[in-house]
């Protein structure tokens, strides 16, 4: 009734409007209703009748009325939907210039709509929970040159000054490129050298498993990163070249060339420098990746140790300041995928290096009535050439089975020469040595059930290190009184090892999340150590003295069964381990042979408990029995330096120890307050010590087995962020006490206790502006107690300033101060380094300048104490140099 009137008026209006010349807008109005009344909130969609494009839409109001506007005079269809009604479609044809049209809609109800309908997806959407993707363009600001710089920008990731990449506090397992792993744990080669610009996405893989079939079964907390490249960088060659030239012919040349296709990936890298930079970095990780508790990792800890070493001391100091080098490094790395199932990885690596090291030392020995002072002026030159090759085959037999084979070959050739002035005697040492390694590993993995995996691994290693050592002086007259004519000595030695192992490993992840691991295996190792020591007069061998020649064959066969169970109850986890070993040992020293077959069990129990969100504790107790190594069991003396002889026990030994570890964490790393305390206590029920005879010209140390020693270490780190100064205060407190016993010059068993205290403070800003600072200081007190006690305190302080002026220009200044408490003179040293970079052309050309040792500190002295005396050592440092850098990308 009313509606008729309304529509009558509407029609009138429509007609009226028709006479008004409007070119564009047409309004469609109307009402939606059913047989009973009006329909509120019906959806009305106006579409083009041909293209079906949506032109406009609306919902009807409480009175069922709607209004739609359209710009175009065309043919339309109007689609009307309302819940509980069948969809309606009304064709609409607008007359030219028609500005309004009324369309009323009548809807028919759907019978079934009165019942509740539940529509459910068939299976929940799977989400890759352990993967987080970061698209790099949202994080970069243009200052990043290398992958390392890029990763520093990703929230949660940290890169420390050594290039170690961490998520929070945990180091990543590997850095992949489009899913392929080129460098394993040696990822720093990639992160430090690969340019950042081709990377589109960084994928963070949590709970990562090196063996993809172990994913979700093994207890993994590993983190890996995968770099995804943008389309335009795929299958094309790209790279960069960086050259630096400085005063006094200091230089560095770096180059990277790479091509990452879907099937093949290539990475060539080269570095040459004379600025003390150790480009090999983590190359050791590539040659011998060391993975603890990784399934199928048998034999990782098997290697030959050399008897002798002529190498620079490790200093509590930046190594590159004393490393006079001339290094050349080339690495070729290729991944092929001939089929979907097969992946072949090859790695070739060559390294040449010539390093010089300079040291002056004064050693004062005062022990058991023996007093003397030795003065050494030492120059060392090391030459090395290393060639390394690795071949990996990965064959995916099926979705649940995989076969992996790794072959490695290493060949190292070393020539070390020292020029020594020992108490005024000119002495020349020469050590020529080689290292040959062949390593073959095969692993078969079968995931025979969803949460059960079986691995079978076999490995064979053969490694040999022959050494030829010659000294052009005869310091041992007192040892060999009948050889007055001797004027030089030589020692030829070979240390060879063969390892063969098989391991069967079962991992069973229970329904409740508990994990059971069982391993059965056999590891066989044979060591052959031979050494010949000769006294010479010029080139004539006078004597090969008795008691100084070794021919040792040492075989250890370890048949073992290992079990491990991890139990998880809410916030409480327990790990229990029980490892049973049956050994079959055989030792032959200079044709005297003996056998032994001990059996022992190594148990361990640990727990971790998260009391609440802020408080976490974990602790472990373990009892370990370790086997003696070949360098512990040989019978006669060997020369291990120009004035030292060592001797093994000549017997089988198993060493027993108990360890307790305790860790307490308060707060979380990103909270304002965060603290962590770590306590380690260990008790060696037996340990190797020495019975040493010390003379001015030589020392003879005989290995002896002693009972009971203790070691305790406590370390606390506290972080507090001061909001008002946007800076973090770090307090680092540590205490270590170690104790051992030895015999010196026929003394009784002496107890030697050493105490170390360190306390440090650091303050670092987190300003958002141009400038940031980092300053810190740390004291270390060392105390040694034997019959007399000796102590001193050193201090190291630093101040680093950073200025990031713009995306194009930044600079860093680093200064250090060293103070040695026990030096009377020359006890304070200062260093200043700086680094500045300017981008000439974005992504193409960067200019840089680096300055090292700007105060031109030429020498550096430090002081140490031991149980037999004190020593003052002076090192020669790389002089001041300034490098001009130019980096070009292509």
């Amino acid at each position: 009734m009313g509606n008729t009137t309304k529509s009558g008026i509407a029609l009138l209006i429509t007609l009226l409007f028709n006479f008004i010349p409007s070119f564009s807008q047409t309004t469609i109005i109307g009402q939606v209703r059913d047989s009973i009344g009006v329909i509120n909130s019906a959806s009305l969609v106006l579409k083009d009748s041909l293209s079906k494009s949506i032109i406009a839409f609306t919902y009807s109001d409480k009175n069922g009325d709607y209004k739609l506007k359209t710009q175009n005079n065309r043919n339309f269809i109007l689609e009307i939907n309302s819940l509980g009604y069948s969809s309606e479609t009304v064709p609409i044809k607008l007359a030219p210039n028609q500005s309004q049209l009324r369309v009323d809609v009548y809807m028919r109800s759907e019978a079934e709509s009165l019942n509740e309908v539940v529509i459910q997806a068939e299976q929940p959407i799977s989400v890759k929970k352990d993967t987080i993707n970061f698209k790099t363009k949202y994080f970069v600001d243009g200052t990043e040159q290398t992958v390392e710089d890029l990763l520093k920008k990703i929230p949660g990731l940290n890169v420390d000054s050594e290039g170690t990449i961490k998520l929070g506090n945990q180091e990543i397992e590997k850095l992949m490129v489009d899913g392929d792993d080129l460098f394993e744990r040696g990822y720093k080669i990639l992160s430090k050298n690969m340019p950042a610009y081709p990377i589109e996405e960084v994928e963070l893989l949590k709970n990562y498993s090196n063996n993809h079939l172990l994913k979700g079964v093994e207890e993994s907390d590993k983190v890996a990163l995968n770099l995804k490249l943008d389309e335009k960088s795929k299958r094309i060659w790209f790279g960069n070249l960086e050259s630096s030239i400085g005063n006094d012919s200091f230089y560095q040349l770096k180059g990277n060339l790479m091509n990452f296709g879907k099937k093949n990936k290539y990475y060539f890298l080269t570095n040459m420098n004379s600025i003390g930079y150790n480009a090999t970095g983590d190359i050791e990780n590539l040659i011998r990746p060391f993975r603890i508790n990784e399934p199928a990792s048998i034999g990782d800890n098997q290697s030959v140790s050399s008897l002798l070493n002529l190498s620079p001391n490790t200093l509590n100091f930046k190594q590159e300041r004393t490393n006079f080098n001339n290094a050349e490094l080339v690495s070729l790395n290729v991944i092929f995928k001939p089929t979907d199932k097969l992946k072949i990885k090859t790695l070739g690596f060559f390294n040449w290096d010539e390093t010089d090291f300079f040291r002056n030392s004064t050693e004062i020995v005062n022990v058991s009535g023996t007093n003397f002072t030795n003065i050494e002026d030492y120059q060392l030159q090391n030459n090395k050439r290393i060639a390394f090759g690795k071949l990996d085959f990965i064959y995916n037999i099926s979705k649940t089975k995989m076969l992996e084979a790794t072959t490695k070959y290493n060949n190292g050739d070393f020539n070390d020469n020292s020029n020594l002035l020992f108490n005024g005697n000119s002495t020349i040492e020469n050590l020529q040595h080689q290292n040959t390694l062949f390593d073959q590993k095969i692993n078969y993995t079968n995931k025979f059930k969803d949460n059960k995996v079986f691995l079978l691994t076999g490995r064979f290693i053969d490694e040999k290190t022959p050494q030829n050592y010659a000294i052009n002086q005869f310091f041992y007259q007192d040892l060999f009184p009948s050889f007055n004519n001797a004027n030089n000595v030589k020692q030829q030695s070979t240390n060879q090892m063969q390892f063969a192992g098989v391991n069967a490993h079962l991992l069973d992840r229970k329904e409740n999340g508990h994990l059971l691991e069982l391993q059965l295996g056999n590891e066989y190792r044979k060591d052959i150590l031979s050494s010949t020591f000769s006294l010479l007069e010029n080139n004539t061998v006078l004597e090969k003295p008795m008691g100084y020649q070794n021919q040792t064959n040492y075989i250890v066969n370890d048949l073992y069964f290992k079990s491990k169970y991890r139990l998880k109850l809410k916030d409480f986890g327990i790990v229990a381990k029980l490892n049973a070993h049956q050994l079959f040992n055989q030792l032959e020293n200079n044709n005297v042979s003996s056998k032994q077959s001990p059996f022992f069990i190594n148990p361990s129990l640990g727990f971790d408990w998260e009391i609440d969100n802020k408080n976490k504790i974990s602790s472990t107790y373990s009892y370990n029995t370790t086997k003696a190594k070949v360098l512990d069991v040989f019978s006669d003396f060997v020369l291990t330096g120009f004035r030292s002889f060592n001797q093994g026990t000549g017997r089988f030994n198993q060493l027993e120890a108990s360890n307790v570890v305790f860790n307490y964490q308060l707060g979380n790393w990103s909270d304002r307050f965060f603290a962590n305390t770590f306590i380690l206590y260990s008790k060696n029920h037996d340990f190797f010590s020495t019975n040493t005879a010390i003379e001015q010209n030589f020392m003879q140390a005989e290995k002896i087995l002693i009972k009971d020693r203790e070691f305790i270490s406590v370390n606390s780190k506290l972080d507090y962020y001061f909001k008002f100064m946007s800076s973090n205060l770090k307090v680092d407190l540590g205490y270590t006490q170690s104790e051992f016993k030895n015999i010196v010059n026929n003394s009784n068993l002496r107890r030697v206790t050493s105490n170390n205290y360190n306390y440090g403070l650091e303050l670092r800003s987190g300003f958002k502006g141009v400038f940031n600072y980092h300053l810190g200081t740390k004291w270390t007190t060392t105390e040694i107690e034997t019959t007399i006690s000796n102590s001193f305190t050193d201090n190291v302080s630093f101040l680093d300033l950073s200025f990031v002026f713009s995306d194009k220009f930044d600079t860093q200044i680093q200064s250090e101060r060293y103070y040695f408490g026990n030096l009377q003179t020359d006890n304070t040293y200062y260093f200043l380094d700086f680094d500045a970079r300017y981008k000439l052309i974005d992504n193409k050309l960067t200019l840089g300048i680096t300055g090292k040792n700007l105060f031109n500190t030429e020498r550096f002295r430090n002081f140490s104490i031991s149980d037999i005396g004190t020593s003052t050592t002076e090192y020669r440092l790389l002089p001041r140099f300034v490098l001009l850098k130019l980096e070009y990308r292509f």
Partner: protein
Amino acid sequence: MTRITFLIVFFASVITALAQNEKVKVSYDLSYGVVNNTETLIADQENAKYSNTFVTVNNDNNVSQESENQYSVKSQKVIKLDKIITYQQKSKDIIYQVHYKDKNKFLTVRDSLPQFDWKFTHEKKEILGFSCTKATCSYRGSKIIAYFTQKLSYPFGPWKFGKLPGLILEVYTEDSSIDYHWKATQIIYPYIDNIDLSLDIEIKSEIIDMKEYVTDRDEKINERFKIMDSRSPKGTTVKSKTQRLGVEKIYEWETQQNQE
């Protein structure tokens, strides 16, 4: 006679009114970063109430064994996210979000939404048996892809999304540093329940505007980044960029420049 007619009309309108206020309940699966959660939309023709629960994300493997006898404890084990209830009305461009820190502690944020400039495409796909049309828009710095069905005539969707000629069954961000993805997993209709979908008056009394809320939140995040920067190791120059990782990256009251 008139009386009877009146009676019939009255009766009929009651039924209509009932039919008109039919509710729908949709469960959505939301995933972004490590978070994966089920969220719920309950809507009638006029109002919508969208809520998640308190989300706790468990990072079970936060104790790592570094070597044979050494453990270290890593980052936060449980990440707790607030419960947020989003209230939308068909006829209004203002959205209220109530953020619960816990049951009694909450904060209401009033957000005057910018217009969704939905662009329709011809692409269609079926979600839970409903034919859905793809629409795209640019919303506060993110590119949004949505699939809606005309068949369910509600102008709502998950979170703050809506204003389409039908219910949104799937919506995701594209070209974003962390992708957000909502997808309907269950639809119940009509959903018979007496739940009140309008914003609680009591809650309404403590309201802050979105702008103020964002400023506060950015300040807190900034502070957190500063803490992390000031704890980075020696020798490294780190400057974390404060980056909004959510769907909303740039607000109308900000310039299009970088927010530092």
